[in-house]
């Protein structure tokens, strides 16, 4: 850099040109890589959509472009499978789980982030351990517990626990609430607010982005969940979710790949739509799960 400034003007100009040319080459290289990667990331979805619009015969070939377009495949999926029921089950499961998780996790996260009490460190470490625990570890005892209450064969064993907080959600919200300056809370307390009113009136409005992120994560987790519904509802097809229906759809209609892919597209579409409306909350939420450098 300093050498550049001391050089005679002509040399300096030549060097600048070289630097600029190199920059342009680097620019082209980087953007070319990025564009190739975009093609690679987008291909699976585009291919699925195209396949879902073919006839079932063409879907068996190596063609990637439909000879004739068959959007009615999407209607047929509804006719040949109980898709509306799967969809309803999935919406109920994901919807209730999200509302319940937020309602039960926000107060706990607030206490961990903003209230001083004995054992708060131990509790926080426990929350992290629960978060890190592979669900398979406690599967058998929990299954036996729900079987005793006759709730296996339904989605309730997956919904009821969300009334009692979710470790990941508590963790995420705590990280977010730590970023809210305590002065706001102190001001509310001086004005005579109790802790619950401080939480509801002051903290909740300020924590909206964090709550949105935590809610979206829970919703997506439940929507995509396969292990849970497989465990509790596999014997009762009436309680199946989209993930479960999709995985078994193939075995029933394995020649009709156009229909299988149409169902697959239908299962992922709502999530992508939600993402475009809530992109910022998402990115912020994921960033919170990581460490601040």
């Amino acid at each position, binding site marked *: *850099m300093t050498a550049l400034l001391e050089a005679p003007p002509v040399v300096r100009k030549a060097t600048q040109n070289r630097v600029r040319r190199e920059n342009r080459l680097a620019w082209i290289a980087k953007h070319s890589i990025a564009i190739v990667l975009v093609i690679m990331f987008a291909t699976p979805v585009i291919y699925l959509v195209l396949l879902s619009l073919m006839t079932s015969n063409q879907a068996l070939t*190596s063609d990637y472009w439909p000879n004739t377009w068959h959007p009615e495949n999407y209607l047929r999926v509804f006719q040949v499978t109980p898709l509306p029921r799967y969809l309803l089950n999935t919406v109920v499961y994901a919807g209730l789980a999200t509302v319940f998780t937020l309602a039960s996790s926000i107060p706990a996260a607030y206490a961990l982030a903003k209230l001083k009490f004995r054992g708060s460190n131990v509790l926080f470490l426990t929350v992290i351990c629960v978060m*890190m625990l592979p669900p398979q570890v406690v599967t058998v005892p929990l299954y036996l517990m729900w079987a005793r209450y006759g709730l296996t064969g339904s989605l309730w064993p997956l919904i009821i626990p969300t009334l009692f907080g979710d470790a990941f959600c508590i963790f995420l919200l705590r990280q977010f609430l730590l970023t809210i300056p305590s002065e706001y809370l102190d001001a509310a307390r001086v004005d005579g607010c109790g802790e619950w009113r401080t939480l509801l009136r002051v903290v909740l409005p300020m924590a909206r982005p964090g709550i949105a992120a935590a809610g979206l994560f829970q919703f997506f987790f439940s929507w995509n969940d396969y292990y849970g519904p497989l465990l509790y509802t596999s014997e009762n*097809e009436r309680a199946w979710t989209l993930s479960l229906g999709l*995985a078994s759809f193939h*075995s029933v209609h394995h020649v009709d790949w156009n229909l299988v892919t149409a169902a697959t597209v239908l299962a992922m579409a709502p999530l992508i739509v939600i993402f475009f409306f809530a992109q910022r909350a998402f*990115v912020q939420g994921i960033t919170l799960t990581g460490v601040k450098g």
Partner: protein
Amino acid sequence: MTGIRLRRNLTTLSFLAPALIGITVFFLYPLISAVYFSFTKFDLLSVPRWVGLDNYRRMVDDPFLLQSVRNTLWMVVVFVPVRIIGAISLSMLLTNLKRGAGFFRTVFYLPALVPPVAATIAFVYLLKPGTGPVNVFLGHLGIEGPLWFNSPVWAKPSLVLLGLWAIGDLMVIFLAAVLGVPESLYEAASLDGANAWHRFRYVTMPTIQPVILFAAVTGVIYTLQYFDQAAVAGSIASGQASTGGGVSSSFGFPEGSTFTYPLWLYTVGFRYNALGYANALAVVLFVVALAVTVILLRRAKAFSGEES
């Protein structure tokens, strides 16, 4: 005075009550039960009978367990680092793009939203040996593509490809970390004559190191519970019976190459109904997961988010 303190404690308790109940009923109780059950033998219809260490002894010569442990270890050794390297590379690329970074970021992120079952189905079709577009494309280049999900050698690498496609979450975490590296550090390095690689190696890497540790630990934990994709890929690629109703016999297809530890645990517990043995497998899984978590908690203080 004590009255005020009591009231404050009661308030705190009211905030924590649901979570405390949840941790007790859905974590501590089943965990302790699992440890107890691991010393017993029973199925869904019988009462647990104490058998001491039998279940743990049984592990020693269980060929399926050995196979599943091998597969899960393979995933830990390959899947986790490949995803971390991929995510760092993508985030470095994104921070270096001057135009369209937002568009690229969205496209790279989106696959992470696709439900695992749907993504797995998509990849099995994409990688179909005969007519799948990937092998057709490779054929145009004069390369004979592998059998992917139908080959015992290539099935796990195919799952890694699937994991790379859905790398969005990890990428966003690393992107935030890379963007958080102070610009002044780069400037100082440039003045010392560091080239791009040096800046990455000696400025970026050390600064984002806690994030790499975090990603490694959560990645290992994720791999230990890897179930959905392996189960669905085996079922769809084999073209066999459903994974929805009951437990599929296609677990691990082809030739057990995708048979992970959680798949074996599930099979033992809910297909063979050997619930005592399944709990012993669960206890081993818990010990391993806990050990990995402890590494994280001890090494990365930043993770606990303490303000001090």
